[in-house]
């Protein structure tokens, strides 16, 4: 069923083109663009493939067929483009499959036999599919396939297609096939059976014993597959000797693994692997600004940006300064905020989000260079009110570090000079709409021949939905003991259930011996008499 087109090239002939069928992209975020997002999709696939194979991948043509787009690619690039199958692109998961010009008759013949083979090798009461020693299967041997390695990879690929016809949904496969054996298939790596992971994402038990797998690398392409795997068998592979930390590593790969080579995983190993890891605590911003330059700049900048952008630009920007803005329309939004229709209208046409703006001319046009261009851009953006640094410091998160090798326009220091890199996370209110937005802004400052003596070399801003200030708070350093944590949890639950603030929730729980049920009863009884201040405002 797979034939002529997909043949590795020998000699120096240009490799023949293979057709890939790409679906699942029609509802992407780019669906509204003139070509429905097809060109951006192709670019994405080419880029992914280029990364995957570490050399340039390029499609040689495309053809739209309803909801599918057929792309023509050289044989060499097929594998890396197929590796993007299931990837998320622009908000949707794209599906890519190999399209082969097979005649219907031959396809039927193979399908029928594969179906027989699969049915024969399935043990329903054990929910088990035995694909061991596949090359020795008499029925497949009679077809003359399975003899060579290359053939075998196509055999598994083709068989998985039939798997999806026998067990038609993911749910059905999850329900009916818990155990899969790939024992004794001479596997040196998983290249030939990679389609198996896509066919059985919910597998619980995998037997890879008696193959020729030599290192962890040989099976690393399944590192992120089988998220529910509980048992694995690897006996009779050279990797058992070659990888002293094999089991430790597998425990990292498969979060639910508890049985290895038919033995329970030793408890200490399991505990060590399952101990919950916690990222470093969130600390206050690091603001290293010995000369006070950054502080003064920020005070002036936000005052100026809210009141007189033209004067601000004259004071800190010069002919080489750059400004660009991008909108992240997908950012998490604080629950107090509503999503308004067309709410990004004033910003989006200037946004330089490289994920969306792929045309080189547009990319150049949306990076504004020089005081005049920057002022012109700023004047098109809505007027703003930023919070006051002194009275509302909790609304800001500021960081400042030395940035070496900033170009020196005076030419006195050809290697560049030390400047400052400032990152600002904060919020503003639009004057016209009162709408709150959050933003992230990065400046690089260096010396310059501006009225201030300071030059903004780079100014980049990301604007997003208002996301609150909780992320800026420092995480408490000491671990809370478990009793305290439990009480805190109860307070939190009571607050959620009643709308009371933490003070009153604590009061109520204290009077109820920290029994949530009791506290709820007490609350219901007292609700009518509670003052407004007892509730979260």
């Amino acid at each position, binding site marked *: 069923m797979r034939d002529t087109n997909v043949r590795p090239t020998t000699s120096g002939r240009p490799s023949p083109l293979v057709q890939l069928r790409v679906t699942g992209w029609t509802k992407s975020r780019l669906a509204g663009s003139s070509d429905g997002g097809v060109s951006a999709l192709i670019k994405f696939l080419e*880029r992914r493939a280029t*990364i995957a194979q570490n050399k340039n991948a390029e499609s040689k043509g495309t053809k739209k067929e309803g909801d599918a787009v057929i792309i023509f690619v050289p044989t060499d690039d097929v594998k890396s483009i197929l590796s993007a199958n299931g990837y998320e692109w622009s908000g949707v998961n794209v599906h890519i499959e190999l399209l082969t010009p097979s005649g219907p008759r031959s396809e039927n013949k193979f399908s029928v036999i594969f179906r027989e083979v699969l049915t024969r090798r399935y043990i329903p009461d054990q929910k088990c599919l035995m694909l061991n020693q596949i090359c020795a299967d008499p029925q497949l041997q009679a077809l003359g396939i399975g003899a060579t390695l290359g053939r075998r990879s196509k055999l598994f690929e083709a068989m998985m297609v039939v798997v999806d016809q026998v067990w038609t949904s993911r749910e059905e496969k999850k329900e009916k096939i818990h155990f899969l054996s790939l024992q004794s298939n001479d596997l040196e790596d998983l290249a030939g059976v990679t389609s198996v992971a896509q066919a059985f994402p919910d597998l619980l038990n995998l037997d890879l014993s008696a193959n020729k797998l030599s290192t962890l690398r040989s099976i690393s392409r399944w590192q*992120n597959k089988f998220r529910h795997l509980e048992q694995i068998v690897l006996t009779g592979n050279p990797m058992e000797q070659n990888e002293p930390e094999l089991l430790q590593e597998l425990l*990292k790969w498969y*979060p639910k693994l508890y049985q290895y080579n038919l033995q329970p995983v030793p408890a200490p190993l399991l505990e060590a692997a399952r101990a919950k*890891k*916690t*990222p*470093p*605590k*969130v*600390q*206050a911003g*690091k603001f290293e600004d010995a000369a006070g330059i950054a502080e003064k700049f920020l005070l002036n900048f936000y005052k100026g940006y809210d009141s007189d952008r033209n004067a601000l630009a004259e004071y800190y920007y010069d002919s080489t300064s*750059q400004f*660009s803005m*991008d909108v*992240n329309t*997908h*950012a*998490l939004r604080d*629950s107090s905020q509503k999503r308004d229709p067309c709410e990004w209208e004033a910003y989006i046409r200037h946004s*330089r*989000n*490289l*994920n969306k703006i792929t045309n*080189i001319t547009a*990319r*150049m046009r949306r*990076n504004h260079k020089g005081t005049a261009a920057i002022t012109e851009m700023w004047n098109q953006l809505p007027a703003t009110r930023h919070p006051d640094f002194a009275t509302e410091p909790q609304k800001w*998160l500021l*960081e400042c*570090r*030395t*940035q*070496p*090798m*900033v*170009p020196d326009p005076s030419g006195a220091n050809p*290697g560049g000079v030390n400047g400052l*890199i400032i*990152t600002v*996370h904060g919020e503003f209110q639009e004057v016209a709409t009162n709408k709150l937005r*959050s933003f*992230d802004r*990065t400046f*690089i400052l260096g010396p310059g021949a501006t009225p201030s003596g300071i030059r903004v*070399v*780079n100014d*980049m801003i*990301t604007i*997003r939905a208002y*996301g*609150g200030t*909780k*992320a*800026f708070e*420092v995480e408490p350093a000491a671990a809370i003991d478990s009793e305290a944590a439990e009480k805190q949890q109860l307070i*939190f639950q009571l607050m*959620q259930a009643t709308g009371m603030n933490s003070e009153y929730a604590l009061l109520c729980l204290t009077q109820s011996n920290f029994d949530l049920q009791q506290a709820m009863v007490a609350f219901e009884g007292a609700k009518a008499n509670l003052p407004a201040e007892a509730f979260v405002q």
Partner: protein
Amino acid sequence: MASVASEDALTKASTEGAQDFVDAYYTALQNSRPTISTYYVPKTTAPDGTTTPDIIWNGNTYEDGLEFQKMYEDSMPTFVHFDVQAIDCQILNPQYSKETTTPGGMGVKPERNISFLVMTAGHMRLEDRSEGPLFEFSETFLLVPNLEKGGKGVMGARRGWLIQTQSFRYVVVHDPVLTAGQTAMDIA
């Protein structure tokens, strides 16, 4: 003196360099942690005492790529997923190295002889794909050309750009109680 490339060539090199870097780097954080250190410039102290790389992660500082890699290997949950939703970049120095040849003996094309800022924004999910803690993050990198590219043996020798300065921040913490209900919708 090395020459400066055209505006077109600079834009192409920086914007495409930024996207390739972002693709590779966040993938490494997710599932290639032993390679993380190869994305950083070697630890160096300038005559004035300034050290590079300069790495801050939520206010915590790290001396070099190896120390940052160790943090990821030892302290970050096995499951970490990034969804980078916005990327932008700007060139800081259009003529980074003044030498026409580099210590590695390789010439650097003028459009690649640049340092540039990359800003990213997106979701970061920990521990579990659908129910783990969820954050909005913002990250700024300053990338410089890998002048040793072409050297042999080191994995990092293949990378076109290396991180000199990095600042990562959670900027929105999703409420753990609301997470289950809202995020599926928000992420879709």
